[in-house]
């Protein structure tokens, strides 16, 4: 049993694969509606963006309110390249992800000089500039009426909605593994050192400039992948999606799920995005305007008030409480005897 626990249950890769398998339930088993699949697709693309954002916020201690615009950027680029230019999906994916990566590098260079609140608002302004570009450059983005895309075409075959969803889940699991590798590498340890104290990290010979760039570039890259997933799953993109509110939701997702953990952003995406949508489609609650959002907001506040470390630590918390309880009972027994 011990061996099993050590090698199978504790194996991170198997855990991530299990998460992926759970996400695949609506595709494998019949009886789930298409709207539920759309909802889960929304959770998966946010989970991907959140996983990247976690590298920035949870591991490097930097903040950005511009990442929603990066997601939008790659969504528009991918829609334009596959639609207007007729490029194959693989190639356009590459370009679409490269665009926010480069912009993220630029933002990282700005971030070197700014800290905390100033950084948050500077990135907010940066994101707003991008969003204004989405609105005004209508030959590229379709302006307010938005831009259309199709399901991805791979090796000459057009994927169905289910297959696109499976592809997104596979991507999500791969990216989780990638982040796990990253944070346990030299780079990851440098990022964590930077989060804990910039001065101490610098004193240890870690280049703040380099690792801020790395953190911003990686998280922007993930945001880009997430944007491509969005536009080819929902098949539509308009500027009202990529607002600062989405960036704030990314932060909320990471914090509510568990800041600086790999599973946290996934749980966060389920709660922040999945729950309001699920409530909207439930019979009585969903019919009164506003209640789904209200309930999600209340839940979020309650989680933060009473479990500010994040939802992912709840099992560990329960285990700890149980162990304490057992210990206390044993002690009382000992006293009695």
């Amino acid at each position, binding site marked *: 049993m011990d061996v099993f626990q050590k090698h199978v249950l504790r194996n991170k890769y198997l855990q991530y694969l299990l998460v992926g398998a759970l996400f695949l339930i609506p595709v494998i088993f019949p009886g789930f509606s298409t709207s539920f699949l759309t909802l889960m697709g929304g959770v998966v693309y946010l989970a991907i963006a959140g996983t990247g954002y976690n590298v920035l916020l949870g591991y490097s201690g930097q903040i950005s309110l511009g990442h929603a615009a990066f997601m939008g950027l790659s969504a528009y680029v991918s829609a334009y390249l596959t639609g207007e230019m007729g490029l194959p999906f693989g190639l356009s994916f590459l370009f679409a992800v490269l665009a926010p990566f480069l912009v993220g590098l630029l933002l990282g260079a700005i971030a070197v000089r700014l800290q905390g609140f100033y950084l948050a608002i500077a990135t907010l302004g940066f994101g707003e*500039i991008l969003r204004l570009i989405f609105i005004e450059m209508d030959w590229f983005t379709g302006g307010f009426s938005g831009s259309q895309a199709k399901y991805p075409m791979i090796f000459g075959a057009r994927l169905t909605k289910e297959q696109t969803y499976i592809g997104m889940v596979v991507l999500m699991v791969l990216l989780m593994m990638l982040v796990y590798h990253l944070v346990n590498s030299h780079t990851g340890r440098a990022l964590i050192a930077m989060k804990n104290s910039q001065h101490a990290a610098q004193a240890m010979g870690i280049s703040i400039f380099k690792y801020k760039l790395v953190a911003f570039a990686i998280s922007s890259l993930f945001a880009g992948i997430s944007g491509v997933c969005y536009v080819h799953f929902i098949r539509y993109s308009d500027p009202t999606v990529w607002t600062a509110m989405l960036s704030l939701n990314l932060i909320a997702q990471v914090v509510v799920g568990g800041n600086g953990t790999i599973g946290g952003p996934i749980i966060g995406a389920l709660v922040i995005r999945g729950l309001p949508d699920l409530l909207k489609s439930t019979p009585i609650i969903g019919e009164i305007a506003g209640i789904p959002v209200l309930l999600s907001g209340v839940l*979020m506040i309650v989680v*933060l008030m009473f479990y500010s470390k994040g939802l992912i630590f709840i099992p560990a918390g329960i285990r700890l409480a149980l162990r304490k309880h057992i210990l206390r009972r044993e002690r009382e027994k000992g006293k009695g005897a």
Partner: protein
Amino acid sequence: MAAFFQNIVGGIETGSMYALAAMGLVLIYQTAKLNNFSQGTLGMFNAFFCTSLFRAGVPLLVAILLALVFALILGALIDTVVISGIKNISALGRQMITLGLIMVFQGLAPMLYGTNPFSFSKMISASALDLWGVKVLPNSFLIIGLTCALMLGLYFFLERSNWGLAVRVTAANPMTAKLMGVPIRRVTMGAWGVATALGCLSALMVAPITNINVSMMENIHLNSFIASVLGGFQTFYGPVIGAFIIGVANNLIGYYISSKWSLAILYAFILLFIVIRPNGLFGKKTINKV
């Protein structure tokens, strides 16, 4: 030349709305050390409250005053119940609570007041006055005058009164303030109340232009954040000046360069400015001790 001054007056008018919101942001930031992301949403909710009173037959002026009092209490209540009352939470977690508040009030507003936007008339509906070729609505005078009066009032409150001193001490260092016997819980409670009332006033000023709906404050909220950073967050007056600069500059760029791209150009300039001066116009450099 008349067009130039016309743009400046218009800019000061929108700048006033940003300034009120920015003042609210900086009050909370300085005393409670957190960014209140829910300020715009709270303003929206209180504007709904004010209009619903007006529709129930309460005279407009009384309705506005009641709404301001309601906002004051709501802000203080939020601080005591969900912000200051909690221990063991990171600074980021606290800010995320204000994000949860956005969801709560964006859910409450359509529940209580329906999904249709409310219209809201100007406080003074008289036609424009002609001052040497510049047309100014009396309502604009009211907005600008009220904002300036409030800002001056707050300035003297902060600089001259005992409570103002308590606020400044808390802003400088909450821990020391507490040790010196400043009731910082009451200070943050008051700051939240006043800030929420300022946000409500800002919402009521923009209401005749946008109507009262769930997303009415998005633009003001965003610009008040950017104004705070432009002016520098470590002072109380910096954000207010930043707000007026944004209002005026946006109008001038829109008139002389490009109305389509004015905001993008303005934000780009501000971004550049912040990279050069990372603490804003009036901000002081904070030195971290290792």
